[in-house]
């Protein structure tokens, strides 16, 4: 097998007795936009810093085009990075900031000037060259940082929550810019975020981090429709989890009896690492809010309405099952016309759209 463009192999990072990154492996093809998604402290940033060379992994290896980069110091790795905070050099203007990596590399002045112009055009800041960082908005500063990180054509661009300091509207604007720049330059991007929407919007693939491990790697679609673990299911998209009284598994399909006696069959089964492969373990059923439908014929799971919330494009209804668990439904306002608190209904869903976790 030919080695991938970039591979992370069994990376492990410990601080004293704390395990920050635990056996992380990834193969990343050239030109991919890969996002590390996870809650804070899940090891995603630590992995990124290992790539940047800011911390030395306890064990494991990182290979770029087949060669280990771990013994190369940060400044010789030729990797680009955009940080969470604005890291423009405060005493240099925009041009000088973008030119800095080129100056360090001793490129001729004419080449630097041309490349800086190209980069400022790429991030749509032509004409801002003489501004000082202090006179730029947060969004503009991050675009200059992006231009600076790309100026020396790095094979890999690292982005550590670069948009977390910006407000929502600006964030969406720059997300579109980042996608465009990725398309135009074809640079391999490793992007860290804790915002699932941002991850889904930007990435080719997403690696979901939890407790220092990667729970699943795949496209946004894969993660949403076919989550490997309970954590991924709950982290990507909205979901409700229901306990079961009885679970029967046959092959890849399961049949459950809920505590109130309702039976649902034909559920796709996901086994978590620790679960026994057979036996009547009580699993949990995960349902997406938009999979739920009201069943007028009185079939399905009997529930009581707790609350109805109007959210503009859609409405959500909060139900409670007979045994006290909560369940969410998202639907158009018309579909739930007449639903009001304390009313009782039956809800139903296509079993193939839900998941049984063991």
């Amino acid at each position: 097998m030919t080695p991938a463009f970039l591979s992370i192999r069994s990376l492990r990072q410990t601080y004293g007795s704390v395990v920050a990154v635990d056996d992380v492996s990834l193969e990343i093809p050239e030109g991919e936009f890969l996002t590390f998604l996870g809650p804070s402290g899940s090891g995603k940033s630590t992995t990124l810093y290992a790539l940047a060379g800011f911390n030395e992994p306890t064990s494991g290896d990182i290979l770029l085009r087949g060669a280990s980069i771990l013994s190369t110091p940060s400044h010789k790795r030729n990797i680009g990075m955009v940080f969470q905070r604005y890291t423009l050099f405060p005493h240099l203007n925009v041009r000088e900031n973008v030119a800095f990596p080129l100056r360090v590399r001793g490129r001729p002045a004419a080449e630097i000037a041309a490349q800086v112009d190209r980069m400022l055009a790429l991030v749509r800041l032509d004409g801002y060259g003489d501004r000082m960082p202090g006179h730029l908005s947060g969004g503009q500063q991050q675009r200059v940082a992006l231009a600076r990180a790309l100026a020396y054509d790095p094979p890999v661009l690292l982005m550590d929550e670069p948009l977390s300091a910006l407000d929502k509207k600006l964030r969406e604007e720059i997300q579109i810019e980042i996608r465009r720049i990725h398309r135009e330059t074809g640079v391999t991007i490793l992007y860290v975020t804790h915002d699932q929407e941002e991850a889904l919007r930007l990435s080719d693939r997403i690696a979901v981090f939890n407790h220092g491990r990667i729970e699943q790697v795949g496209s946004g679609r894969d993660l949403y429709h076919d989550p490997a673990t309970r954590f991924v299911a709950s982290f990507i998209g909205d979901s409700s989890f229901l306990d079961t009284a009885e679970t029967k598994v046959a092959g890849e399909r399961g049949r459950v009896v809920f505590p109130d006696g309702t039976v649902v069959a034909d559920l796709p089964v996901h086994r978590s690492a620790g679960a026994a492969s057979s036996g009547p373990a009580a699993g949990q059923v995960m349902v997406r809010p938009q999979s739920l439908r009201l069943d007028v014929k009185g079939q399905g799971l009997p529930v009581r309405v707790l609350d109805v919330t109007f959210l503009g494009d859609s409405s959500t209804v909060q139900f409670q099952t007979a045994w006290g668990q909560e369940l969410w439904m998202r639907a158009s306002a018309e579909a739930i016309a007449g639903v009001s608190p304390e009313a009782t209904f039956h809800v139903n869903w296509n079993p193939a759209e839900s998941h049984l976790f063991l």
Partner: protein
Amino acid sequence: MLLSYNRLGGLGLALWAITILVCLFLLVPIIFIAALSFGSSQWLVFPPPAWTLRWYRDLAADPRWLDAALTSAKVGVLSAALAVALGLMASFALVRGRFPGRNLLKALFLTPMVLPVIVFAVAIYALFLRIGLNGTLVGFVLAHTVLAFPFAVIPIVNSLEGFDKSIEDAAVLCGASPLRAKLKITLPAIRIGLFSAAIFAFLISWDEVVVAIFMASPDLQTLPVRIWGALRQDLTPVIAAASTILVAFTLLVMAAAALLRRRISK
């Protein structure tokens, strides 16, 4: 009420009266000395019977005063340079280091500021007597560097704490070696702190009397030592002239520093 300026009433008047008196108390002696240095009276009669530059001429005619001023300048510049250089390195350790006893180290670095100067003066005098550094330029510079060190460390630590290390990291990833990133990016970014440190350190040395009295030899004296020596003999107006120059110089340095700082921070 008591903390609302416009509603103090008669109390405000009383506070203003005391404030003005205190301001006069603080300012008048300085102005008074400056005035006397241009007065013709040998016995410092005020108001002076006539105005003269005689005392300044006396001052300029005596090479010992000029020598002392030169020594002061030399010691000040060297101590400030040394204090800022050591203070800069120490600040990196204090701000970025993660080692046991970091707070203790910080306390040690600030101790020369709070220890009674007389104790340090006597102690360093004893040491320098033994190793033959008394009355030497090196001795002056070393002793003043110790005294100026806390005043250099404080502004540098403050500005380094306000500097986001990610900016330096960004420079390193851009391809600058860690040392180059510090020189090209971090130092310019904290230049106001460095500048304040240099000014403070210089002024501490420039105005320092106690250690200098112990350290001085007849051949090597700083300006304050010269003034001290003269003061112990009589109150000649030449001292007024020397004091005025000293004060004017300090004010000049402070004003220049304020101006420069404003220009730098733009």
